[in-house]
């Protein structure tokens, strides 16, 4: 067990070193570990929040099945992995590609379907109906996974497809797989902002978001843009689902609900409809959770309670999010 041996030597060194610089040393490396955890969570929440912001931007609607789309994405990825293993493909890279592609494409399709079946037909109805319909749609999706996926009610083991090398500086451990996921997540966010800013589709999405009537009169195929936006938003969630699976090495059917509410809270904190707001909101929520865990050392399970309480207080102070929703209410 070579790696373990080397580890032990370094640990004795670390213990000696720690004895020397007890005060400052202790805080910095732990702090770094917290920041690392926070960044990982923040990125996942940001990806989910971006979905909410895209849907709201285009249609002024909240698509509340989004959290469960994330879980469905992770399960789709897991199914692809199982199929590949069954077919005898053992090496990690093709498996990883298959998992990510299956998850994102299948959820893009599901997202567009949800938009087509649940959201567009309800354009005329009161806005709350869309929230209710998609909330129930999310419940149906969650129950389908629980009931029809083999052993769906149990947590499923998600394969560790990324290399698991890690470097430790005293007690801060940086794992290669976390680093890769962070880089991939950031690239995805940057890529999305480029798509929105540089491409015709992006222009069309922003136009529809700004003012639907004028955009439609300018010849923008409204339905196509909406369905594409739903596809993109859902694909983001699927990617976050795969990240969740790789990070925790486990997925279960019920985690989508909480992640959906957290993603929506993050999007609202940042101001629904604003791209930067969603990313900021995601990291802000993760920061709140980490702060909550650090501030209440032995009752860290309160971190969700702390984070959601702050969300409610912030919304009382700024009802439409920190940066504020762009569309004021017309009298």
């Amino acid at each position: 067990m070579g790696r373990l041996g080397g580890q032990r030597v370094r640990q004795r060194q670390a213990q000696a070193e720690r004895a020397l610089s007890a005060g400052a040393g202790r805080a910095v490396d732990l702090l770094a570990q917290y920041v690392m955890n926070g960044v990982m969570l923040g990125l996942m929440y940001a990806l989910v929040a971006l979905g909410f912001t895209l849907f709201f931007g285009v249609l002024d609607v909240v698509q509340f099945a989004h959290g469960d789309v994330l879980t469905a994405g992770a399960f789709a990825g897991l199914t692809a992995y199982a199929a590949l293993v069954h077919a005898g493909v053992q090496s990690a890279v093709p498996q990883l590609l298959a998992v990510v592609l299956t998850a994102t494409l299948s959820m893009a399709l599901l997202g567009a379907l949800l938009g087509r079946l649940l959201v567009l037909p309800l354009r005329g109805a009161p806005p709350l109906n869309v929230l209710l319909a998609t909330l129930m749609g999310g419940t149906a999706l969650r129950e389908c996974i629980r009931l029809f996926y083999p052993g769906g009610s149990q947590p499923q083991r998600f394969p560790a497809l990324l290399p698991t090398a890690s470097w430790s500086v005293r007690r801060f451990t940086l794992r290669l797989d976390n680093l890769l996921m962070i880089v991939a997540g950031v690239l995805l966010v940057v890529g999305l902002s480029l798509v929105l800013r540089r491409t015709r589709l992006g222009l069309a999405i922003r136009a529809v978001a700004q003012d639907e009537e004028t955009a439609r009169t300018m010849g923008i195929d409204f339905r196509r843009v909406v369905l594409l936006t739903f596809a993109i938003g859902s694909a983001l969630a699927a990617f976050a689902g795969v990240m969740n699976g790789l990070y925790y090495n486990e997925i279960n059917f019920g985690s989508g609900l909480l992640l959906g509410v957290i993603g929506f809270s993050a999007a609202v904190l940042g101001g629904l409809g604003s791209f930067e707001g969603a990313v900021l909101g995601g990291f802000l929520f993760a920061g709140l959770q980490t702060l909550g865990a650090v501030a209440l050392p032995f009752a860290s399970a309160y971190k969700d309670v702390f984070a959601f309480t702050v969300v409610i207080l912030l919304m009382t102070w700024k009802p439409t999010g920190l940066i504020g929703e762009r569309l004021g209410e017309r009298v």
Partner: protein
Amino acid sequence: MHWTLAVRRIALLVLLVALPAAAKDTVKLAFIGPLTGGNSAIGLGGRNSADLAVTLKNADPKSRYQYELVVLDDECKPDTGVQVATKAGADRSIVAGVTHYCSVVAIATVETFHRLGLPTIVWGAVLPDITYANKYPEIHRVNGTMINQNETAAKLMLKQGFRRWVIIHDTTDYGKGHDKYFTQYATAGGGKILGDFGVTADQQDFTAELTQAKGLNPEVIFFGGLTPLGVRIRAQMDKLGINAQFQGTSGIVSDDFIKGLGPLAEGVVAFREGAPAEKLPGGKFFLEKYAEQKYPNPPEAYGPFAYAAAKLLMDTIDKVGPDRKTVITALAGVKNVDSIVGPITFDDHGQNTVAAITALVVQDGKWVVWEDSEYASGKRKLKGR
């Protein structure tokens, strides 16, 4: 008496008269366990074992009644547990019950069974209060409690030279019970508990707690809780580069724990009352019969106890008849009744004393009894030794 009930009774009478002695009375027995969710493997193992007991009893010509197993799922949740317990207790045709693996559910349904007068035998929950908190004649238990489990655990780990623990436990009485009793026995033996964290049963992310634990630099992370949390914590320990030894309780002794972690499960230590099936007095017989029935999932750690509980109930009903009150009085007198988990004796609290505590370690993907493992013989080393 509304007419449908009356009609059914008359029909039954006619049936009995017309068919002299050929058909035996049907007696219903309830089985309650976690059939869905994270602990369903153990629940299904228990159900199959109880079902095996019923099948064998029905096959035996000497048995006075035809037994039928009514299977109910408590989802390892107290509220669902009380609901199905009320349904079982309220159903007059159910005479007795083999109830619960999850302590959080068992402690909740004690009142319900007492109120509805249903004699029950717990087959897997280890929380002492289930039987010791009050003296209800209806409540019995064949498996042991967590008190002696932690005594043995502390002795063994201290003997291995471990001195510094961090405890993570779920906030149910099961988790808190293990936290309390292990701290008591570990500190008595010179060990030090650096810190303890309560976590909720459906918590997903433990990086915050584990980062703090890492800051305390423990030799061992003691986890008091069930398999789903155990898997997540052990996996996230590896993510944060925590190389402490992982020590669990009876809650993680299941194949799902190993399946969930893969290589990471290697070297994990856990303790539980009673021995694995093959080491039990009636173990070989039980495993053979279990295999014959070709159940889709294994009996798991508490299958034998479920079998023993079901068999004891049916034998008692055979002796005293399918009436709840007489069954309760008969169970009170159970002394040294032979069973596959060894002789069963119920004390005044209905608790069967199970002396044997088994230490187990995961070796090459299987739970192995500590004494037979390469960790005991020294060929393999626990973490940090």
